[in-house]
């Protein structure tokens, strides 16, 4: 019985749970807020880039591919530090929330551009040719024939990639964004007890387990219809 109490005292002390409940709940909202902003701008920008890329202007495509390759090769934390510590020296002051939002959006845009692009490529040539031969223009074909088919294929990989990237909201703790990890680990070192981190873990599980399960369901759903 002694060990059980000791275990609870170490990992889940009730007075600390009560003291930090509101803080962690607040931090969870911040995490959700960053994640929602990143999903909207990241996927939106990625789709835009893939559309622009399909017009096949050489110079433009070179820039898009370079952007996508760089943002997919660099660890997001490197980009965050570059932006957060570098820009003030150039006279640009961004809040830490903005830095996290912009950097994660760029990373998600780079990955989703690549996913949308392979979706567009996977649409058979005949679809393009048939649509063009009925008199549709290039853009009309792209938007009404190709993209609807391409986007269907991209849903599973896009969902998985998005989940991976929004978990990077935890990197905000390095530059002081008051999200779950930041608030939990600050509280942990303040009280010298791991309870706040346990609460943080529960908050993450509550957020991400449903999303992971949803992702797996989407994957199963889409692969079944294709088979």
């Amino acid at each position: 019985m002694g060990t059980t109490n000791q275990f609870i005292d170490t990992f889940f002390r009730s007075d600390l749970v009560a003291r930090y409940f509101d803080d962690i709940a607040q931090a969870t909202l911040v995490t959700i807020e960053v994640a929602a902003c990143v999903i909207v701008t990241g996927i939106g920008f990625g789709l835009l880039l893939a559309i622009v890329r399909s017009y096949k202007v050489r110079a433009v495509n070179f820039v898009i591919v370079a952007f996508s390759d760089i943002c997919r090769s660099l660890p997001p934390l490197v980009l965050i530090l570059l932006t957060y510590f570098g820009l003030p020296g150039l006279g640009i002051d961004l809040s830490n929330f903005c830095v996290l939002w912009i950097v994660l959006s760029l990373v998600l845009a780079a990955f989703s551009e690549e996913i949308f692009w392979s979706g567009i490529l996977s649409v058979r040539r005949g679809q393009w040719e048939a649509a063009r031969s009925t008199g549709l223009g290039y853009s009309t074909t792209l938007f009404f024939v190709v993209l609807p088919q391409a986007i269907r294929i991209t849903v599973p990989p896009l969902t998985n990639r998005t989940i991976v990237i929004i978990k990077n909201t935890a990197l905000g703790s390095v530059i002081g964004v008051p999200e779950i990890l930041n608030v939990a680990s600050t509280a942990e070192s303040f009280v010298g007890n791991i309870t706040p981190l346990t609460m943080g873990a529960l908050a993450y599980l509550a957020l991400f387990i449903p999303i992971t399960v949803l992702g797996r369901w989407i994957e199963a759903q889409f692969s079944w219809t294709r088979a």
Partner: protein
Amino acid sequence: MNLAHQYFDYQTMINSLPILWKGLKMTLLICAAVIPLGLLGGLVVALGRQTRLTAVRITVIALIDLFRALPPLFLLILLYAGLPFMGVRLSPFSCVCVAFLLNTSAYYGEVYRAGLESVGRGQREAARSTGLSYMQTMLFVVLPQAIRNVLPDLVSNTVEVVKLTSLASVVALPELLYSADMARAATLNSSPIVLAAAIYLAILWPIIRLASRLEHRLGH
């Protein structure tokens, strides 16, 4: 002008080279530990997920979901701060490796799973009916095809592992990004981080290209 000084100061980059070189060696050391163990761990996870033993299967699925739901940086901090409370003392290096391994085995496991599912049932049945044992069937018939089918995903997940190592800087393990950030703090100039970024790019960009080429060749 200002931009050139803030991000591309030649002298600062030269001065930070020795410390970045040390950091790079640490980064490669983490990779050398985590990538092979993760590839192996993922295989164990994927096979555990397929077993007929319900208890094992459910435990494995629960663990995969757990480690995929926690952000890797959170997992790292949790182990780093939490293990001493449980009476486990690990060096920062081992702690980093354990945290990344838990995260990465779950991801490799999901990749292998997709690979195993892509091999038709008939392959197994045919192999077993020629008298091969379960182990032989797996090793010589199913796995070679499964791994071939998901090779691009294995490669791109490996890129993610290398990127993951940068998180070790948060617990002050002197890998590449940590060293670069030390140099940045000492010089109040971002050039060392740009140099570190160039090093990451030099290592990872060819691998990313390789992954997309493999993907196109397999006709995904």
